């Protein structure tokens, strides 16, 4: 393990990143469909194609529970050295071609093997899980300031046909996060299925509106090659049309399922990252700056390694351009009880999600039972005020809002 040392007036400061080589987990995870393909080739039964799903949703949460949490932070003085280290910069870039390989490999296997419909489905879902992680790679790269990293973000986001993400996320979600206006921040009482119907079209519309505004300022039509959304979509078009031309009509449902599954991974992450959290409006009508208590966090080791520290979400929103290896754990921020792979299945069963998360939300120190501090689904407002407002944790309930 590499140790960074900095000489200061107060003496030497040293830091060893114990996770340094484990960050390569994200490279392995990008190739997860090949785990199922390999097992199928070796053992013969197409049920083995479900192995990637088993790893994602059973092994992942168990590893997070078993390996536990890592609360270590690099010293602030060492952060510039970490940010400059080319090793860390290289890893997200190296995963970009692997996401192409995952989709092409799964498509090849789906069209060349004698599989029944559910074998093809498992392959499409596995590739979708891998390329949902591709959106995460695009997220890490798209936040950076170098042209190379921003271009690679557009390329990797093209694999699951989500090229509008960088603009939508960087310029839309980060500006509006934890407000009722943000289609990518979930509200208390809103199930993930209702959220997806608001988030997926809302994010698409916001990305196009932001890009249209930028290009209009430049006096350029939105239908030009300077449109960064269209640049990414052009890569998607080339890739996915080539797959249909090469492997036949089976690719149409295969790609539709793959794309949707990748989007669904993002929807799942967006759903759990800001559930119910609310920034307050200041007297000038603007929202308060995003604070650490406006994001849910997890320090679970395994999923943080796979996701480039995405789960240290408060620091990400405080410093969106900070690189993954430098993101910090903060004390006293909203915490999820498991990593993302454990929280996703919980979100897919809304009654369980509400049972686990609503009391946790209401007990946060800055909310402390006060419903006015919560981003509530308007359709569920009366019901939730009746449940938590009146008999809330401290009875701190605005009477005018009573059901």
């Amino acid at each position: 393990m590499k140790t960074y040392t900095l000489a200061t007036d107060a003496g030497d400061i040293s830091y060893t990143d114990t996770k340094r080589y484990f960050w390569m987990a994200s490279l392995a995870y990008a190739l997860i469909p090949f785990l199922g393909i390999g097992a199928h080739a070796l053992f013969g039964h197409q049920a083995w194609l479900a192995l990637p799903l088993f790893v994602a949703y059973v092994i992942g949460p168990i590893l997070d529970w078993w390996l536990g949490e890592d609360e270590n932070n690099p010293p602030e003085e060492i952060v510039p050295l970490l940010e400059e280290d080319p090793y860390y910069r290289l890893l997200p870039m190296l995963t970009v071609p692997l996401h192409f390989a995952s989709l092409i490999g799964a498509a090849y296997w789906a069209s060349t093997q004698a599989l029944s419909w559910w074998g093809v489905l498992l392959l499409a879902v596995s590739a979708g899980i891998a390329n949902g992680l591709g959106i995460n790679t695009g997220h890490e790269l798209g936040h950076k300031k170098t042209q190379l990293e921003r271009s690679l973000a557009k390329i990797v986001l093209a694999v699951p046909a989500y090229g509008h993400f960088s603009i939508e996320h960087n310029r839309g979600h980060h500006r509006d996060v934890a407000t009722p206006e943000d289609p990518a921040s979930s509200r208390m009482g809103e199930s993930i299925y209702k959220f997806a119907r608001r988030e997926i079209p809302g994010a698409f519309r916001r990305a196009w509106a932001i890009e249209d505004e930028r290009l209009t300022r430049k006096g350029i039509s939105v239908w030009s090659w300077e449109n960064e959304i269209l640049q990414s979509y052009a890569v998607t078009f080339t890739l996915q049309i080539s797959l249909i031309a090469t492997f036949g009509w089976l690719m149409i449902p295969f790609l539709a399922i793959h794309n949707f599954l990748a989007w669904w991974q993002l929807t799942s992450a967006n759903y759990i990252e800001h559930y119910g959290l609310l920034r307050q409006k200041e007297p000038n009508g603007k929202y308060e700056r995003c604070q650490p208590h406006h994001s849910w966090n997890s320090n679970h080791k395994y999923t943080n390694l796979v996701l480039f520290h995405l789960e240290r979400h408060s620091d990400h929103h405080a410093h969106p351009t900070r690189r993954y290896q430098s993101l910090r754990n903060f004390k006293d921020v909203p915490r999820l009880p498991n990593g993302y792979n454990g929280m996703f299945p919980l979100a897919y069963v809304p009654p369980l999600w509400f049972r686990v998360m609503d009391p946790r939300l209401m007990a946060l120190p800055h909310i402390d039972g006060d419903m006015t501090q919560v981003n509530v689904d308007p359709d569920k407002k009366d019901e939730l005020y009746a449940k938590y407002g009146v008999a809330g944790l401290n009875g701190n309930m605005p009477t005018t809002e009573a059901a």
Partner: protein
Amino acid sequence: MSSVYECPGCGYQYNQDLGDEHEGFAPGTPFDELPEDWVCPDCSVRYKEDFQPLQ
């Protein structure tokens, strides 16, 4: 009046002489003329009024 303003969060600098071509602000566009609801184009965390003059 300063012609360079810096985002206190991420270090992005708006230089009036250079403008920001990518964002559609021509060279010579004063900081004051940027939209009032403008946020830092790199981090989107800081508002226009958070920017600090450098020179």
